[in-house]
């Protein structure tokens, strides 16, 4: 099954690529619309700010492509936030593929960014957490977050409860970095590669 990692012109695509390679998958890194459309699975990574990342996606003319995909798509960290409708980070409209909004994390005095290993709790049907004993620790680095709502499939607490995984149809998002989350993260990426048609229709 072919995997394309969308080249969003942000640094740090390597660690996502290496994580899949450790699972025996050979990902293609591309910003080419045709390559992305023809992929079996698509990963949307992202570091930096929502505003800069959305600007890059527009410049690369990838907004329509990313919005019309039918195969499983996984947004990681900022990539997950880009799948939502809007981000408070720069007050920017995002891709709007998952009906949720990204807001500043209210940590109630705890250090920010929220950095380190925190527990991910399953919420509802979450095929990406198959075979994982939840709550499970995953690695987070972020200052903005999605508030829990109907699209939430996992939650995490840091001053407030936020959505650490979200999903709408074939679009999935993880606020943490599965590529840097040890055995748990590797299992999540493996589960993503093994998603069935039934999983993405559910």
């Amino acid at each position: 099954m072919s995997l394309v990692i969308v080249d969003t012109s942000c640094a740090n695509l390597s660690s996502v690529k290496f994580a899949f390679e450790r699972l025996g998958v050979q990902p293609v890194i591309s910003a080419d619309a045709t390559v992305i459309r023809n992929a079996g699975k698509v990963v949307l990574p992202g570091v930096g700010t929502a505003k800069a990342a959305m600007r890059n996606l527009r410049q690369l003319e990838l907004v329509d492509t990313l919005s019309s995909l039918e195969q499983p798509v996984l947004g990681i960290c900022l990539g997950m936030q880009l799948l939502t409708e809007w981000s408070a980070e720069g007050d920017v409209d995002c891709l709007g593929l998952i009906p949720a909004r990204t807001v500043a994390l209210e940590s109630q005095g705890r250090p920010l960014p929220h950095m380190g290993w925190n527990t991910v709790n399953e919420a509802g049907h979450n095929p990406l957490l198959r075979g994982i004993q939840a709550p499970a620790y995953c690695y987070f680095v972020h200052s903005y977050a999605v508030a829990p709502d109907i699209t939430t499939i996992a939650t995490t607490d840091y001053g407030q409860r936020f959505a650490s995984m979200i999903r709408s149809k074939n679009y999935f998002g993880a606020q943490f970095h599965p590529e840097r989350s040890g055995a748990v993260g590797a299992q999540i990426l493996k589960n993503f590669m093994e998603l069935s048609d039934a999983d993405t229709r559910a």
Partner: protein
Amino acid sequence: MLARRIIPCLDVRDGQVVKGVQFRNHEIIGDIEPLAERYALAGADELVFYDITASSDSRVVDKSWVERIARRIDIPFTVAGGISSIEQARELLAMGADKISVNSPALRDPDLINRLVDEFGQQCIVIGIDSFFDAESGRYLVYQFTGDESKSQRTRYETAEWLQQVIERGAGEIVLNCMNQDGVRQGYDIEQLKAMRAICPVPLIASGGAGNADHFEQVFRQANVDGALAASVFHKNTVVIAELKAQLHAAGIAIRQDQNAPAQVK
């Protein structure tokens, strides 16, 4: 609950891991990659690779191993050592480093912090601070070029003053190395870390002084730091990470103990 982080630090010189006592007389511990993988498998939450010679010799950290580490381990890691430009940082991040840590070059050119944060985001910019307690004046003073004893020198900054400045400039995390304690294994500098914690709204990592598991428990409990960094106690197996984590967990400190087996390759 956010777990406290246990962070082995691998001081790198000429492609090997070394450790000195109070930054002197570096002894060779071993090769980088096997040690990195060993720590990842043993339960380390994060790794720091610090080229201790880079800043003082005006050369950049040898980078070829960064990508090899990124390919091999599945926990976050930071690279430090002589990073003084956007281009150097970009290359390290592109090879798979999660964060870069800047120390002496930021003291020379504080605006470097702003430029790095603007370019790559706060989340991957760590500032390392080497702080020496001067008993005579009773003040905490920032030192630079500490990788080489002959070049190590004090700066014009007091530690609290520099800490506040780097935070204003956008640093995403602070590693505070308490030089008086480094390598002597008498425990972290709780008093200093407590004082800096009170004025540090970003994650704070304690460094310098770990000699046994109780020292970790003390620094988390008393100084409320986000993570504790250590080198020799891990390299010499004086502290075994799994046992340390079991002790911290039993003491009621939030810690990651992974019950999930590694994913199998199909």
